[in-house]
């Protein structure tokens, strides 16, 4: 039999004014198990806590009920109080007689009666409480960053800076991501490569950072503190340790049909190539789809010219298995394909380009060496029309595009317009916009500069049709301010296409059991208070994988994610919430229902020898991983045999409360 102490708080007059606290303390005295009851002005005060501790010692209490404010307020306080007096902190129950009683009722008799029922319910629950021990699990002091763009690089640098090992897994042959493809960055107009490549070099030279490029994460198991990942490093057919990055092979390669992904397929590359001059690792890679040697067995030119002997046509995929304490998702984005929006004629006209393609056309390392030329005939465009919100801000669940604002397009369009006007002042630049959204430091000033100083023609309205006429593109759109339809004979049309999560994001999310929204962006644990953590413990979010962002925001978020990772890796052990599900092996029938409803993948099935009265056999039973379980209880209700129960909120405890409430 338990020895229960009941402590009724006055909360000054907050409770005592409407609840007769003495009557409550008196009424519960004869409840089974109660050996002590008291009331005091402020239980949460030092004196109040001392009263509780003294009573625990004096009466050898095995559990306490505090009748006070909401457990959301002071449950933790009283648990600590109990613990310091040598009581198990989970042998504490709170009867909420302030928020749910004294504050909402005016009649003292009625409120007192309710307070007594609430106290009795808490006592009934406490009689079924069992001491719970918070478990611990070890932390592997290594972090996995999926994605090697600016988000992944920044997170890796910050985590490495704190002294922890970091692996960056990048699907492309080089790190750098989308930022490496950009020409200039808004609103300062400094060149993207100039600020990114030093960071890439820093990452590659950091002893704690291990870059695994041209690879993908194939499998992840485990839980916070001890994930196990299988990484497939695709065959490059070039020995990374031998290749010096001289790029002689790339110039000699006779195959010229491979599309250059780095230049948004605007030009071709060899079958053996280095994505761009500052690539990291600066190692060539062979595209097996294009390589004549790999396809027909004849050629081998690159092998002949390579003085380092780095070419290895027989190289195979490599599987790497590693353990990690934390995983950061930095999978980034890609622009949508605007072809289905046929009014823009993207699929039919080479001179209708997306903004990222335009970025490459303006870049000194791009297909035109930085001279702005039309892809169709290589002429200088004299009139350029920019169209914003292409595929953004559309009605949900339609083929028109994405329901969200892609956030960066207004600013980069202003940047493009400005750069064109600066480089080629004789060019007419028109921008069709719905709204110009510039919430950021120095952003609106930047946009106004484009309009006022650079003479960019901003037209409030949307383009309804782009049609080829001779060598011109006829753009028909509305000008809502002038209330007229405008027709512009343009040489080039640039679409500010919406951005969407990288196509690999969905499968990675499934692999990590990290939740995602309907647009495949990763969801955060709390939209305001925990913006860089996934609801799944140990998974952190960095960059556009979580939602559209510009570079400064991405870097800030990457740093925030890193600080969360460091906070986790700094711990030797994780203390787990003991209020988790637990399966009774004797009752489990191995049906797998609980495994299916668990949102965290905390339940696995194992073949186990079960021993009980008259039972000794190997059965397939559910096992809950207490480090992963968050204690929602979905499995407890699903379990048909009643084997699954939730500690701290067990069936017995809740039913005891139900019974107690219904009795009076």
């Amino acid at each position, binding site marked *: 039999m338990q020895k229960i102490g009941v402590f009724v708080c006055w909360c000054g007059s907050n409770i005592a004014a409407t609840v007769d606290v003495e009557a409550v303390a008196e009424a519960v005295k004869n409840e089974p198990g109660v050996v002590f009851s008291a009331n005091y002005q402020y239980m949460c005060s030092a004196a109040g806590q001392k009263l509780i501790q003294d009573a625990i010692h004096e009466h050898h209490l095995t559990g306490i009920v505090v009748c006070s404010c909401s457990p959301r307020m002071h449950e933790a306080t009283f648990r600590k109080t109990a613990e310091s007096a040598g009581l198990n902190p989970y042998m504490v129950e709170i009867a909420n007689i*302030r928020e749910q009683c004294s504050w909402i009722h005016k009649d003292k008799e009625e409120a007192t009666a309710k307070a007594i029922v609430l106290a009795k319910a808490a006592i009934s629950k406490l009689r079924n409480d069992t001491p719970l021990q918070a478990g611990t699990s070890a932390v592997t002091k290594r972090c996995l960053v999926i994605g090697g763009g600016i988000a992944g690089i920044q997170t890796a640098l910050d985590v490495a800076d704190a002294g922890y090992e970091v692996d960056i897994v990048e699907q492309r042959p080089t790190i750098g991501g989308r930022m490496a493809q950009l020409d200039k960055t808004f609103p300062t107009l400094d060149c993207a490569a100039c600020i990114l490549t030093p960071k890439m070099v820093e990452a590659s030279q950091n002893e704690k950072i291990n870059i695994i490029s041209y690879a993908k994460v194939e499998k992840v198991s485990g839980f916070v503190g001890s994930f196990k990942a299988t990484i497939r490093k695709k065959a490059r057919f070039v020995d990374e340790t031998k290749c010096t990055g001289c790029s002689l092979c790339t110039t000699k390669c006779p195959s010229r049909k491979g599309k250059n992904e780095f230049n948004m397929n605007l030009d071709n590359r060899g079958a053996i190539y280095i994505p761009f001059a500052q690539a990291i690792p600066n190692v060539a890679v062979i595209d097996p789809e294009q390589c004549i040697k790999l396809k027909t067995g004849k050629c081998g030119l690159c092998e002949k010219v390579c003085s380092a002997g780095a070419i290895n046509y027989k190289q195979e995929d490599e599987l790497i298995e590693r353990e990690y304490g934390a995983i950061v998702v930095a999978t980034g984005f890609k622009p949508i394909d605007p072809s289905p929006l046929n009014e823009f004629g993207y699929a039919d006209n080479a001179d209708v380009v997306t903004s990222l393609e335009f970025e490459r056309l303006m870049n000194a390392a791009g297909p035109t060496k930085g001279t702005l030329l039309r892809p169709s005939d290589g002429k200088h465009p004299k009139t350029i029309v920019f169209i914003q919100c292409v595929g953004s801000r559309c009605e949900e669940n339609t083929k028109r595009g994405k329901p969200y604002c892609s956030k960066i397009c207004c600013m980069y369009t202003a940047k493009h317009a400005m750069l064109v006007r600066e480089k080629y002042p004789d060019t007419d630049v028109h921008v069709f916009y719905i709204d110009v959204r510039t919430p950021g430091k120095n952003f609106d000033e930047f946009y106004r500069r484009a309009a006022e100083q650079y003479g960019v023609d901003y037209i409030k309205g949307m383009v309804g049709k782009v049609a080829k006429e001779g060598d011109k593109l006829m753009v028909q759109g509305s000008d809502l301010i002038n209330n007229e339809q405008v027709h512009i004979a343009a040489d080039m049309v640039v679409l500010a296409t919406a951005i969407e999560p990288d196509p690999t994001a969905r499968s990675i999310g499934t692999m990590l059991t990290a939740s995602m929204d309907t647009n495949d962006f990763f969801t955060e644990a709390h939209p305001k208070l925990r913006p860089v953590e996934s609801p799944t413990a140990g998974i952190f979010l960095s960059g556009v994988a979580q939602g559209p962002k510009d570079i400064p925001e991405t870097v800030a978020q990457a740093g925030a994610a890193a600080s969360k990772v460091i906070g986790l890796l700094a711990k030797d052990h994780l203390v787990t919430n003991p209020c988790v599900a637990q399966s009774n092996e004797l009752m489990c029938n191995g049906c797998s229902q609980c495994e299916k409803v668990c949102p965290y993948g905390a339940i696995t099935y194992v073949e186990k020898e079960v021993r009980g009265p008259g039972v000794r056999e190997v059965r397939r039973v559910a096992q809950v991983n207490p480090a992963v379980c968050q204690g*929602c209880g*979905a499995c407890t209700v699903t379990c048909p045999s009643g084997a699954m129960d*939730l500690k701290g909120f067990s069936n017995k405890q809740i039913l005891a409360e139900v*019974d107690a409430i*219904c009795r009076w």
Partner: protein
Amino acid sequence: MQMVNETGWKPKIVAFCCNWCSYAGADLAGSGRLSYPADIKIIRVPCSCRVNPLFILRAFERGADGVILCGCHPGDCHYTSGNYYARRRMTMLFSMLDYLGIERGRTRVEWVSAAEGAKFSATMNDFAKTITELGENRKLGDLRCKK
């Protein structure tokens, strides 16, 4: 304020509230001093999906006249999907209660967020009114449990 009908009978109402949204909503109703009948007693559960339909039947058996389950709004569940499970399970339970001839109004599922103190109070007032109108639960009560 207590709901009393002509004969002096008062309803007994059990409210299951999830820890993250509705229980916090109830706390907010309290700090806003938004009253609702004292006949309603709240049981805190971690998530609406922790509520076994059997808990509700047990409450009726032991003499409750109405049971209400409150959880986070769809899409807002702290555990991402718990309230969807709760919704499905309760739909099943309610259709069974319908089949047994139990008045539909005795059970209810409501979504109350942590910011909706006013909604919590309004919901509880409305539910208590419904239960008072329906009168005592005789069909499901276990007579052996009566004092």
